[in-house]
């Protein structure tokens, strides 16, 4: 049985090192600077790219837009109308710079996962989503506290209006844990888990296909390797979709949290 299986499952008979958590441990670029790794480089380059993009887009505004201005305006209006105005409402202008910066940063850093020179999404390292979610957590709590005062915010965030008094012991801890503790954790882990799993999927298809094609003698395995490599292109397409969607969801939820923290009591 084991002989039959070793023919069927060539990846498990040694030689092939399956991708796993260790695939995300990248060495630092310079030995002397341990914190400066590929993730850090990608994040810095993305900040420079985003700054350049929005500065160039904002510099020359004509009444009749050129092609490049049209691209910039489309990106701007997407965040402004679909995310900020729909989620926050009439008071959305204050938070628009934050949302645009968050959306561009998350989107570009996700797309590093399919960019041929990098092939590693920055949020696949859990520290980056943690930092982003911490920023969002500070901001939406700050918005709520500055709007309602500290105790007013605690009351409005942990006690929805219209709850009968005998339900309070159940509702108040639930809402508090959900709104203050679970929100930032899920916000960061959602981004992280999607990028992590997507990158792992790509690695399995590409590395597995490469191993089947080049390190296996049987013609069936070579065919399977070619198919796997072709399918990996479709996986890359799926990844582009997932990465854009996650950037969108991250920004939408940020807007939603800000909006619910700043909401008036009904």
């Amino acid at each position: 049985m084991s002989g039959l299986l070793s023919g069927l499952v060539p990846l498990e008979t040694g030689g092939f090192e399956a991708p796993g958590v260790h695939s995300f441990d990248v060495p630092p670029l310079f030995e002397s600077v341990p914190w400066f790794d590929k993730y850090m480089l990608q994040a810095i380059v993305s900040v420079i790219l985003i700054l350049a993009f929005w500065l160039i887009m904002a510099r020359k505004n004509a009444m009749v837009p050129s092609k490049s201005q049209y691209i910039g305006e489309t990106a701007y209006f997407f965040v402004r109308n679909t995310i900020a105005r729909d989620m926050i409402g009439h008071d959305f202008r204050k938070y628009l710079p934050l949302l645009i910066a968050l959306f561009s940063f998350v989107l570009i850093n996700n797309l590093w996962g399919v960019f041929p020179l990098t092939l590693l999404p920055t949020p696949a390292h859990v520290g980056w989503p943690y930092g982003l979610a911490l920023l969002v957590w500070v901001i939406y709590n700050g918005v709520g506290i500055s709007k309602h005062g500290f105790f007013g915010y605690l009351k409005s965030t942990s006690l929805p209006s219209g709850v009968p008094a005998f339900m309070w012991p159940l509702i108040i801890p639930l809402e508090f844990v959900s709104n203050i503790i679970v929100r930032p954790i899920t916000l960061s882990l959602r981004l992280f888990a999607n990028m992590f799993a997507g990158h792992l999927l790509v690695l399995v298809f590409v590395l597995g296909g490469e191993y089947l094609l080049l390190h296996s003698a049987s013609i069936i395995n070579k065919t399977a390797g070619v198919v796997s490599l072709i399918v990996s292109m479709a996986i890359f397409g799926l990844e582009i979709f997932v990465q854009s969607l996650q950037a969108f969801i991250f920004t939408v939820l940020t807007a939603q949290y800000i909006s619910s923290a700043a909401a008036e009591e009904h």
Partner: protein
Amino acid sequence: MTPLELTGSLGIVGYGLAAIGPGIGVGLIFGSVIQGTARQPEARGAMMGTAWIGFAVTEALAIIGIALAFVFGG
């Protein structure tokens, strides 16, 4: 002798099971939004706001699941 011996972490299987519920839940949420939008297109903005909150809460279960899969799998 076991005919097919699987090695590895059982936590991943547990995560697969744990992802069924949130999967159904997220499907129900956005299915209802699509239905609601088809019936009353101008209410889409209000519905999407609630839907994103519901989606986040529902998907939190799957996210807690993947975190626990790593916690108990290691």
